[in-house]
Each structure stands twice: as C-alpha cells, then as structure tokens.
C-alpha cells in the first residue's frame, strides 16, 4: 500500500469536502516522529534483558508518521468536529454550558498535574486541601453531610450510591429482603443499568398526566422489599417533582432510601437542595453543572454525597483534616471500599472546584436563574410551532415534540436534529425521555445569550414551517451527510484493520 499524503487539507471544511485519511494510511515504512531523552544508560539488547520466550517476534505496528503529518491530521480532525466553543449545544440533560478557560489554567499548574497519587501525605497537602474543600462545598450545595469524590462519572456515582444503599440495608440485616429499586419511566438509562449492577430489580413507576411521579402508583409499589427509589428532580422532562416531600415520606416509611440523580443541578443551585427534600444519597455530574468540559465523551466526575447516617459506608480512603491542622487520608468504619484506582478524576474535580470558587454563591444562583429563564423563554417562543407535551414552567430544560408535525409533514425529531445542524446549532437530545414520542429535549444553558436564544428559536420555527423535505435531506452542509448507522451495525468495522463482519 503506498501511503496517503499528510499535507493536503482537503478534509478541512475550510477548503474541501474530502475524508481525512487515518494515521495508518498516513504511515510510511521507517518514518518516525519520536525522539528520546539521553540517559547514558547501558544499551543492553532486548535479548539481554528479557528471556527470549517472552519477546515479540516483530514490533507491534503502531504508526509511522512524521510529526508534521500527525499535527496536520489531528488539526484537520478538529475542523471536522462541532463543540461548545464553536456554537450553542442545546443537548437536553447534558448541560453543555461554556467551560471557562480560567479553569484550564487553574488545573494546568505542575503543582497539580505532576503529583503522584501514591506520594506520602506530607507531599500532597495541597491536593488534599483542594479535595476536602470541594467535598465541603458540594455538601453545602446539595444539603448533604459527606461525600466521596472517587466516582469518575455519573453512572459510576449511581452504582456507588446503590452499593451504599445495599451496605445500609445489610448493616440492618435486611440485605436479603430488600430486592427492588423503584425508578420512574422517565429515568435516564444509566439508572436502571446501575440498579441491575447493584444487584437489584428495577420496578418502574409511571409518570402522571403532569409529567411527574404518579404518587398513588408509587404507593402501590412501596413495600418492605423496596431498597429505595432513584429520582431525578427536576426530572428528565425538566419539571420539578412538586410532591417530593410526600414521596420522601412514603419511601422512608417502608424503610427505603431516596437516591437523587443529580446529574443536572443547574436549575436548583442556591434555590433548593436535595438534602432538604429528604434524599439520602445524591450523585452529581461535575461535567455538567460544574463546567468540566465533556471532552467528546469524557472524562467527567460523579461525586456522591450522603446524609449523616450513610457516611460510615462511603468509599475510602477519603481526604480529611488531620489532628494537627493539616490533611490526611481516612477510611470510614464500614466503607464499601474503593470505587476508583486512585482518588477519582482528580484534575476534573479540581476544574469543578475552580468553577465553583469563581462563581461563588452569588454566581451559582445567577446560573440557576438564567438557565431556567432561557429554558422557559424558549418554551414560550416555540409554542405553536412544536407540541409542548407538558407545557408548564420548567426548570433548566423542557421537552418539545414533533408528533403533530410528523402527522402533518412527516417531520421527525431526528430530521429536526439534522436540519438544525445546517443552521449552525447542535441538535437537542432526541427520543428521550422515552415517555414522549418524537421528543426534542432542549437545554439551552445559562451561558447562551438572549440573542442566541432568539436565533435558535427562529431556526427551530423555520424548520417546523418547512415542508419536511429540506429536513429529510439534511444535513447538506456538513463534512459528511447522514451516516448509515444500520450498515455500521450490520457490517461491523470496529478497527482500521478489521474486515467487515456481521455485527448483529
């Protein structure tokens, strides 16, 4: 195979519409970028260092590419990628707010990045202080007693929380008896998946006509075998569960615990707190509410905060104040054990702390108000153009639907999504929550201006008014047009080396 060239920019939308070769296609035998530090070490051969039977017969093919082509390649790839820094990203349930650049600088300090996780406490006082402070502000924000910062993402936080629930019940001799965890039909997919991994059965509770938990239906499902309930509040329709206090009482009555999916806290910052609502366990997605950038899918951080009675079960070791004014590690008496190789996604945690310190109580309150203001304004603005299944004051997001439009012009939620890309906006979340057909879950976030809200509204209204053909053709302006997801699954090509195989 003669190799592709790495100096032609036609895959950059700036000048062309070609595809970008892979680093493997850009490789040429014998080419290299790497250079290594001079160490003056003895130059023993592989054979002198490792018994022959363990040695590879031939080097692993990685890539053979010049630094110039490597830079060209990945730079062009970034030109083929949408991001918050390019434009609005109203992806419901994802809180794609602007990530302040000051947080990048705050965590770029070598005093944070070049610290070994197993270094003795005397050498990591700064890190311990940071983590202790972060735990404290997160508890104050959620109204909880203590927290673990180890979970690296929301789902990991959920599972951690469920294992805390399990530890609690086992501690009280009810481990075997408590088999079920209740989840609303509007719950995020990670909730049921985590419940299963937590060793529980999922019991689904329907939503009522107002889009909230159907309390009578919930009562029917409450029983001595219920370990607890997982709720999202505001729920995934963006609605506040007004009966939360009643729900909490009912669940506690049967000895169950309340788990709060706090992936999206944006709407309640400084307004209300899960702890005050009666929740026992709360996980947070610092990569949503607290502006840790999503990185194209991660890393995030999913700390779990708990009420006082659950604190003894938290994962350890935990950063803590020590006797003589410094900091150290502490493992709770009945800890469920580690949930991360080290101390969680430390640099992501530090980013979130920088964001919280920069905003402070006043700033976070402003965040909640503007997030809710944008969402509600847009909901009003879209009335008439789209169905709004639950058309009442929402929190940080709301759900629209193309169900009606689909009947009229055949316009599907996915068509709106693709067409919106042409208008210079990322698409909302589509087909979620599952209880709304043709759902468009829209979360503008607080960092988009009223002018951007107006432009987004106009784009969405224009699309709704179109015949539907444009949308079905869309996107027409992007580097690739609609991709064939079906064939990707049918003829699975998971690596550049793979020959297509029957994926499904």
């Amino acid at each position, binding site marked *: 195979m003669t190799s592709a060239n790495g100096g032609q920019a036609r895959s950059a939308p700036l000048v062309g519409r070609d595809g970008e070769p892979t680093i493997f296609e850009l490789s040429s035998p014998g080419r290299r970028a790497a250079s290594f530090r001079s160490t003056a070490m*003895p130059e023993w051969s592989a054979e002198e260092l490792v018994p022959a039977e363990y040695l590879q017969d031939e080097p692993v093919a990685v890539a053979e590419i010049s630094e110039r082509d490597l830079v060209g390649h990945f730079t062009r790839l970034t030109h083929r990628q949408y991001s918050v820094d390019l434009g609005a990203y109203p992806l419901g349930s994802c809180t794609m707010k602007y990530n302040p650049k000051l947080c990048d600088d705050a965590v770029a300090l070598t005093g944070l990045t070049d610290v070994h996780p197993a270094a003795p406490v005397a050498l990591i006082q700064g890190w311990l202080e940071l983590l202790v402070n972060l735990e404290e502000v997160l508890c104050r924000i959620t109204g909880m007693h203590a927290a673990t910062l180890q979970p690296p993402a929301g789902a990991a936080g959920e599972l951690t929380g469920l294992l805390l629930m399990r530890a609690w019940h086992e501690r009280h001799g009810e481990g075997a008896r408590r088999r079920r965890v209740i989840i609303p039909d509007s719950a995020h997919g990670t909730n049921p998946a985590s419940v299963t991994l937590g060793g529980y059965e999922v019991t689904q509770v329907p939503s009522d006509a107002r889009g909230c938990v159907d309390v009578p239906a919930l009562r029917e499902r409450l029983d001595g075998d219920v370990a607890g309930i997982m709720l999202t509040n505001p729920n995934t329709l963006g609605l506040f569960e007004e009966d939360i206090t009643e729900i909490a009482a009912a669940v506690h009555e049967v000895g169950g615990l309340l788990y709060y999916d706090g992936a999206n806290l944006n709407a309640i910052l400084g307004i209300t707190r899960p702890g005050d609502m009666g929740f026992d366990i709360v996980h947070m997605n610092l990569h949503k509410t607290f502006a840790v950038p999503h990185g194209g899918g*991660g890393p995030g951080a999913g700390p779990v905060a708990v009420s006082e009675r659950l604190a003894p079960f938290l994962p350890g070791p935990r950063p803590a104040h020590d006797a003589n004014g410094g900091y150290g590690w502490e493992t709770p008496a009945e800890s469920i054990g580690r949930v991360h190789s080290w101390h969680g996604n430390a640099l992501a945690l530090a980013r979130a702390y920088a964001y919280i310190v920069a905003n402070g109580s006043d700033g976070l309150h402003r965040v909640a108000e503007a997030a809710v203001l944008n969402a509600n304004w847009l909901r009003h603005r879209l009335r008439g153009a789209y169905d709004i299944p639950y058309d009442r004051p929402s929190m940080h997001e709301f759900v629209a639907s193309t169900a009606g439009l689909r009947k009229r012009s055949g316009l599907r939620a996915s068509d709106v999504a693709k067409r919106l890309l042409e208008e210079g906006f990322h698409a909302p979340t589509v087909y979620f929550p599952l209880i709304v057909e043709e759902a468009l879950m829209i979360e503008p976030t607080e960092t988009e201006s*009223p002018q951007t809200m107006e432009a987004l509204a106009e784009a969405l209204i224009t699309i709704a008014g179109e015949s539907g053909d444009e949308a079905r053709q869309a996107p027409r302006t992007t580097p690739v047009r609609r991709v064939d997801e079906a064939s990707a699954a049918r003829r699975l090509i998971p690596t550049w080396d793979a020959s297509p195989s029957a994926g499904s």
Partner: protein
Amino acid sequence: MSDFVPHTESEVAAMLAFMGLSSVDELFAAVPGALRLAGGLDIESGLSEPDVLSRFGEMAAANRATGSDLVCFAGAGAYDHDIPAVVRRLAFRSEFVTAYTPYQAEVAQGVLQALFEYQTLVCRLSGLDVANASLYDGASACVEAINLAVAATGNAVVWVSQGVHPHWREVIRTFAAGTGHDIREVPLGPDGGTAWPSEGEAGCVLIQHPNYLGCIEDLVAASAVARRAGALLTVAADPVAAGILRPPATYGADVVVGEGQPFGTPLSFGGPFLGTFACRLEHVRRLPGRLVGETVDVDGRRAYVTTLRTREQDIRREKASSNVCTNQTLIAVAYAVHLAWVGTAGLRELALRCARGTRYARESVLAIDGVETMTSAPVVREFAVRLPVPTADVVDRMAEQGFLAGVPLGEEYGANGLLVAVTEKRTRDEVDAFAAALEKAVG
C-alpha cells in the same frame, strides 16, 4: 466575581415580559416554599479570575510535584513518562475538549475518527479484534472484563491473581457486592509470578502482565489454567511493555484490559486516567461502553459512527451490557496522539529504554547492604525490593533528599517492601544518586 451569564438586567426584564412574568422568582413557583433555600448557598461569594488562579497557585505550591527536585521512582500504576508537546497541542484543542459524546455523527467526525484510530491502536497492542472507546481506569476495565467473562461463561467464580494491583482488586471486590460474583484471590509464588490452583472451575481468570511487582507473568501457564477451568483469560497488560513483549492474544487471551495512563497522561494525582478494553469479536455484543465503527454516509463517503448501541444503557436500560455512559474519550485521544508520535520503532525503543533503566537501577539498589530482592521473574519497568527498615520512613527520608523513592508495598506482600519504577525519563546520573541516597536512608 467571575460572571459567565451574559444576560443584562434589561434583557432579563424583556424575556420575562415576553412570558408575561415580572420576576425570575415566578419561574420557580413549582418549588414548594418549604424547600426554598433561605439566604442562598452557604459558600463564599465568587472570585475574579486572577484571584482563583492565585488560590490554586497556593494549593499547588502546597504539593511537592515530581521533577528535578523530586525525581520520581514511583509507579505502581501511575508512571512518570515523557509526554511530547504535540499531545497538549492536539488532543487538548477546544473542539475535542468541549464536544459532547458524538451523538450527531455528521458534525462529530473529528472525535469519531480519533476514537476509531484509538480503538485500532488498542487492538494492535493487545492482538485482539475489537476495543471500546475507553473506560474509566485500569480498575473499572478489570471490573467490566469480569462482568463480560462471567456473563459469557455463566460461571460467577473469578480467579484474580494477587499480582493484580491491590487497588484494582479492592475495586473488583467493591462492585462484586452488587453483582454477587465470587471473587477468589490466587497468591503469588516465590518467583513473583502467580501460583494457580491445579483444579477447579471458573468463569474468569484475571492476571496482570507485567504484574504489580513488575514481574513478567507466565501467560502460557495462565492460559492453560483458564482453558482447563473453562474460564475466559483476561489479561491486564501494560501498553509500554507491549513494545517488547508478545501480545497477550498470542497466548490465547480473550479479553485484554489495561491502564492507558503511560501514553498521553501525566501523573495527575491519579486521574483522569484511562481504562483500555479489547476482546475477541465473538464477545462484541457484551462489550461495555461505546464502540465506534466505520460506515458510509448517504453519498457513500467513508464516515464513522458509534455502533451496536443496542448494548448500551440508554437503549437497553436494565439489560444493558454495562452502565457506562460518559467515558474517558479525551484521555483516549491523548493516548492515540502520544502513541502515534512514538510510532512503531519508537514503541520498541521506549520499552527497551525502560527495561534498561530498570535493570540498571535494580542492580544498583540490590548492591546496597540489607536490600533484598523480592522476585526472580524478569522485570521491564518496575521491581520490588525488601528493605531492612520500615519503608514509609525510608520514603520520607528520600523525599528530603529529592527523590520519590517508590511505592511502599502492602502487608500482603510481607514487611518493608518497596516498589521502584524506572521509566525512559530516568538518567544514569539520577539512578546513581538515587542508589547513593537510598544506601544512606536504609543505613
């Protein structure tokens, strides 16, 4: 305070007016008064950008970072390798950093292709067919591997080598409380390699290679054990050692996981790190997390997209292969950039340089009176020694001398054990100075 909310007062007023409201507070009517937080959050008010940065500067200064005045010989799953400048400059471009999971493939070809290349690299290092788009870290990759193996074999018994990182084993036990898997630890033999039981059945055999003590494991034996036990062989392999060692798949490994930190990620106080995960194609429907596949667009152009999504929790809900949603994509991109920069010949050279430094350091350290080896199996980047005095004290004394001497071994490995790592970054002078200082510290 820093303010990232663009709305001016008059703009807020206009938006409210449009909704027929007179105050933002009315938007929160649904929140019962009893639940409203009186007096706002009980935290400091906001700080300006320079004030935040000076506060972080103080915290950073309260740590002792590795570098010329704290030369790092600590490893144990977090290694001090050189990271080329291209990694920051490319992987951390804002399009990668501020994108979400690639739900809209048409405007996410950048992340998707980078992940596709990452998956290919992970497969090449392991020798297996398919890799996912990353997991949280080495520990979570082990947990997911166990879940896959148990589901595939229908046997919940899991044999975990004591050569697997103690933290990873702890995480495995933590999550087993939920899955109910029967985790059985298998001790190491005197040479430092795993001493497998001669009989019994299992669903999963998990081994680290090289293992926690730095020893190359006998994968021929491990593979035979797994076959006999009816288990899937899961190897937690080091990506740097892959530069000289035979790929685990050549021994019959069914799943190969790993900690990807050595490529692209600084020590970072332990995170974000990178869980790499590869398996045989036959297990692809049980693959945890995201998978990127190649396909075409409506015009027939090559394109990439996340695929086999029906495994995932947002569709499969409680029957999903895993609950992983957000992963470590950005760290995976950094891994791909760094590894591609290192390249084919470079990877071999890198592994060799680590092995040379490790041998040189090991010989220097074992020459010290009272310092004894703990293992006899070959090592490539790390080695374990037993000190004549308590390890923690030695590490403290060495820190005063400007060395992060290594990671103290837990009691399970006996008293006074120290794990010493030597990467390509360590020079002969540094190792000589280290050995001299250690001689004093243990004397």
